[in-house]
């Protein structure tokens, strides 16, 4: 068994200092060690995007990163977005547009959208479709999700004013 390593990782604003096995996937660190089960795991080999989180502001797949690779990083998960009482504009947009049914894929779509809209605040439908090309949804279908991404952009623009 390989020796455990010390890591310091900030997740949703809290600094965690933990000892982890080098082989521990970042997705498992987030879900099992920290108990933040909002990040979902679908395929565990980089295909589906359910496990998407932000690492230093960039969307990444947490199932194909080792926790030790995130030493010193700033991680944001879906729990950082909103609360039941006060949702994030992207969450509101997904709800209003019925962009989820089972919700399994949703945390990944939300985190992908956070990074994307930060850089492209006013996407066309085609651009919104491209933005989510790395996330699978197996039950809702993509039409409503594309609309939700566009509505989210409008809501966020309004928030900023």
């Amino acid at each position, binding site marked *: 068994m390989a020796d455990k390593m010390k890591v310091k990782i900030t997740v949703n604003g809290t600094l965690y200092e933990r000892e982890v096995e080098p082989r521990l996937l970042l997705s498992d660190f987030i879900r099992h060690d920290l108990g933040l089960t909002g990040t979902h795991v679908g395929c565990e080999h980089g295909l589906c995007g359910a496990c998407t989180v932000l690492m230093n502001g960039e969307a990444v797949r947490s199932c*194909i990163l080792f926790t030790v690779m995130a030493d010193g990083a700033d991680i944001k998960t879906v729990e950082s977005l909103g609360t039941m009482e006060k949702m994030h504009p992207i969450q509101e947009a997904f709800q209003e547009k019925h962009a989820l049914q089972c919700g399994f894929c949703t945390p990944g779509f939300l985190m992908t959208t956070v990074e994307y809209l930060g850089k492209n605040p006013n996407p066309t439908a085609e651009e919104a479709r491209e933005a989510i090309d790395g996330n699978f949804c197996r039950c809702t279908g993509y039409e409503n999700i594309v609309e939700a991404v566009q509505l989210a952009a409008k809501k966020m623009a309004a928030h900023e004013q």
Partner: protein
Amino acid sequence: MKPAPFDYFAPTSLEEALEKLTDLGYSGKVLAGGQSLIPAMNFRMARPAALVDLNKVTELSYIKPTQDGGLAIGTMTRDSAIEDSEVVKRLFPIIAEVMPNIAHKQIRNRGTFGGAVAHADPAAQIPALSLLLDAKMKIQSKKGDRWVDAQDFFMGPFMTVLEPEDLLTEVLLPGLVPGTGTSYKQISRQRGGYAQAAAISKVVMDGIKVKDVRVVLFSVAETPVLTKEPVRVLVGQVPTTEAIEAVAEYVAQNECDPGTDIHGTAEYRRNLVRVLVRRSLTEAVERARK
């Protein structure tokens, strides 16, 4: 879907990384973006005894213009950094055109240029680009440095000239002749999916005739293929529609070796090659004329 245990080293300098790789020999493996290696480890198709993580070796991440109008790209430069780079767009529009087709944004945020070259996936874009652009690979180890041409670098599927103690540190792209036209065409099942077949062309015109041409195929043989027929037939000639069609037909029949899988038969892929070579050559010629 959990990787087997391994020893982990995270050097912070190139020197230290080379030292570690020499110490570890066959039991060591380089970890770059991890976007191919970690999925393989999750499946336990790969079970390296020790990983040497390059993510803290910041000196290996750069995009530097060179004297001849080319670029030196540090192996750890992320795909997304290349995709967003203005200097890449200006000097090598073909790279900017290809990048968004590689996997998805979340993967390009971590995957590295050098990692893709070293991985040598026959279905990958970056090895093919390096062949098209006549890249020189800088390989370093404790024993010393050497340069290997892209043409001599890829040995087979996922096989290169790299030895266990070697590190690919830089990909050097010689500058393009002014007026070079380039074009990329691929067919995949969905955006970001691996290409079932793809062709990249590069053309230099001299008046109405072709002065230089290069067509690279990938995903249709064990390594990317630098085709011969376009050079043999088109150089010094007017690239008419008929000439381009004949070249595309020849290349599809004789210069690739596609396999059959659940996504398509070998015959179907040959047909894709014919169509993609025609489209990319035609567009590259048009762009070279402008």
